[in-house]
């Protein structure tokens, strides 16, 4: 199994720009507020999944979203990436509204990377092409340079020897790490991780969590929907507990996991503990 390469690489301090050769064509990335969500609502047919979400994310902050399946975690992340059209409310990115008419969603998505539970690598492309497709087609990076940057990222996460393999040949953990690299190749300022370990065999979870830890250590702003409570407790600056489309409780992990205020949070955590997951 591949150990994730850590050590004093370019990781530390690279923040929203994971690649050492990153340029400065990006939007303002001030300290302070990165995302502000106000009164976000989203329905699928008659089923209202998000019932008014308010959340502010500060740059370099790592926020874990926890809650039962169907509580709206994934939908919230997909709305942030503009993969879902929202029904009401507003989303601001660095103070600018990104919902409503006239927003270039492709531009927004350059700055917000998302990684899915089911990896969603492109099966007809090898690892390298999976990673370089978007930089070449969207950012206009020359192919050679994009490949160079992709190899640097792959090397950083112990995947360099897999660069010419097709996704079928990789383990779930490797696929998910490639999916993370693919998102990072666009040099996003914010990463959304949607239950990225839920589809993995238990013994493969650690290698993916390790990658996320390194990103957090590098200062990446992240919103992480997860069922890994121990991981959330370790890594998060804040943990949000969602139930039925609302954020019930929003607190630092030490507080939320040891001393949850809301009765619904207590009930959820009790079930988690009974299941031996915390």
């Amino acid at each position, binding site marked *: *199994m591949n150990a994730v390469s850590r050590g004093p690489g370019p990781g530390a301090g690279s923040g929203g720009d994971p690649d050492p050769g990153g340029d400065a064509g990006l939007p303002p990335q001030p300290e302070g507020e990165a995302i502000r969500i106000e009164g976000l609502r989203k329905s699928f047919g008659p089923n209202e999944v998000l019932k008014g979400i308010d959340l502010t994310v500060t740059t370099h902050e790592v926020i874990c979203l926890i809650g039962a399946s169907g509580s709206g975690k994934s939908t919230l992340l*997909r709305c942030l*990436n503009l*993969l879902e059209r929202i029904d009401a409310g507003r989303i601001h990115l660095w103070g600018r509204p990104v919902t409503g008419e006239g927003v270039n*969603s*492709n*531009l927004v*998505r*350059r700055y917000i*990377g*998302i990684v*899915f539970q*089911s*990896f*969603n*690598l*492109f*099966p*007809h492309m*090898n690892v390298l092409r999976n990673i370089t*497709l*978007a930089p070449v*087609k*969207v950012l206009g990076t020359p192919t050679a340079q994009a490949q160079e940057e992709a190899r640097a990222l792959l090397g950083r996460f112990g995947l360099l*020897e897999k*660069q*010419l*393999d*097709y996704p*079928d*040949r990789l*383990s*779930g*953990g*490797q*696929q998910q790490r490639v999916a993370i690299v*693919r*998102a990072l190749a*666009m040099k996003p300022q914010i990463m959304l991780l949607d239950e990225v370990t839920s*589809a*993995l*065999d238990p*013994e*493969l979870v650690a290698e993916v969590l390790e990658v996320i830890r390194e990103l957090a250590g590098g200062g990446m702003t992240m919103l992480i929907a997860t069922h890994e409570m121990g991981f959330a407790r370790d890594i998060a600056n804040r943990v949000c507990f969602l139930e039925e489309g609302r954020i019930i409780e929003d607190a630092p992990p030490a507080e939320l996991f040891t001393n949850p205020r809301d009765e619904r949070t207590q009930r959820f955590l009790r079930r988690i503990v009974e299941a031996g997951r915390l």
Partner: protein
Amino acid sequence: MEGNQPGPPVDPLTGVPSGSSGTDGGPWQPPGSFGSGRGPRLLSGGGRRPVVISTVSTLVVLGSLTAIFLLAPGSRAVEHAFFSPRDMWRSFIGNPRQGYYSVGAAIWLNIRMFLVAEVLILVLALVIALIRQSTHPAMFPVRLLSTVYVDFFRGVPLILVIFAIGLGIPALGLAVVSSQSDAVYGVAALVLSYSAYVSEVYRAGLNSVHQSQTAAARSLGLSRWTALRHVILPQAVRNIIPPLLNDFISLQKDTALVGILGTIEANKAADIYSEQVFNFSSFTVAAILFLILTIPLARFTDSLIARDRNRRLAGGTA
């Protein structure tokens, strides 16, 4: 999709060591005994036995069919009318002074019509499929139009379309459009008819690619078109190569229908020969030529599919 590392071969369901299930039922047999052993054990000694069996059964089947043909009361007459070597050869090379054309030369027209039609069909059908897959409200009229188009041309027999185009367009008396050769009208009719079918094949292919692929592509900032072009379409086309090939084999044969306009393609040439000489062996020649065309296409597609699968399973490096 789940990570099957080449790790420990855990069997969570049974816990029984794998490979031990072969000893079910009967008593253990020493390796040398042939007593009550079942089939596979007996055959596994030499690899020749299955080959012998299949050869014998093939000979028996073919022999029976030949016998039925030869013993039929009219077999001599049929043999003369359809398999006369002399007539087959004469129709193959043709003799314009005697009033008939070479079937062997005429097949080139079928090939040319097929190749041109194929390219046009691939393009037109894709356009129709993409229009029908579009969701934008502004596309509604075009979407409606292409739905009507597909319904119409799938419903009308190809031979009627060929008649309508081949006789109707020239009768219109338009400047350039009405003065083309019959082969052009034939190709136009084939394209119109087959595009309706092939667009449905494309649509099935596009639908066979999971939505999560689109989501992944769009989430990386790829535009709708770039995602379609580089992520969705390549996967869709891979999925539909077999049905697509099936339609093209059918198309190769249907070029013979263009002969009804009077164009001298293989079938028409065979028809003329049979009318001149009162022998149908020319049609046998045409049939053989069509077979020679279609079989390589089928093999080629098989190899494409195999190559794609091997490449994906084998990976780039060891």
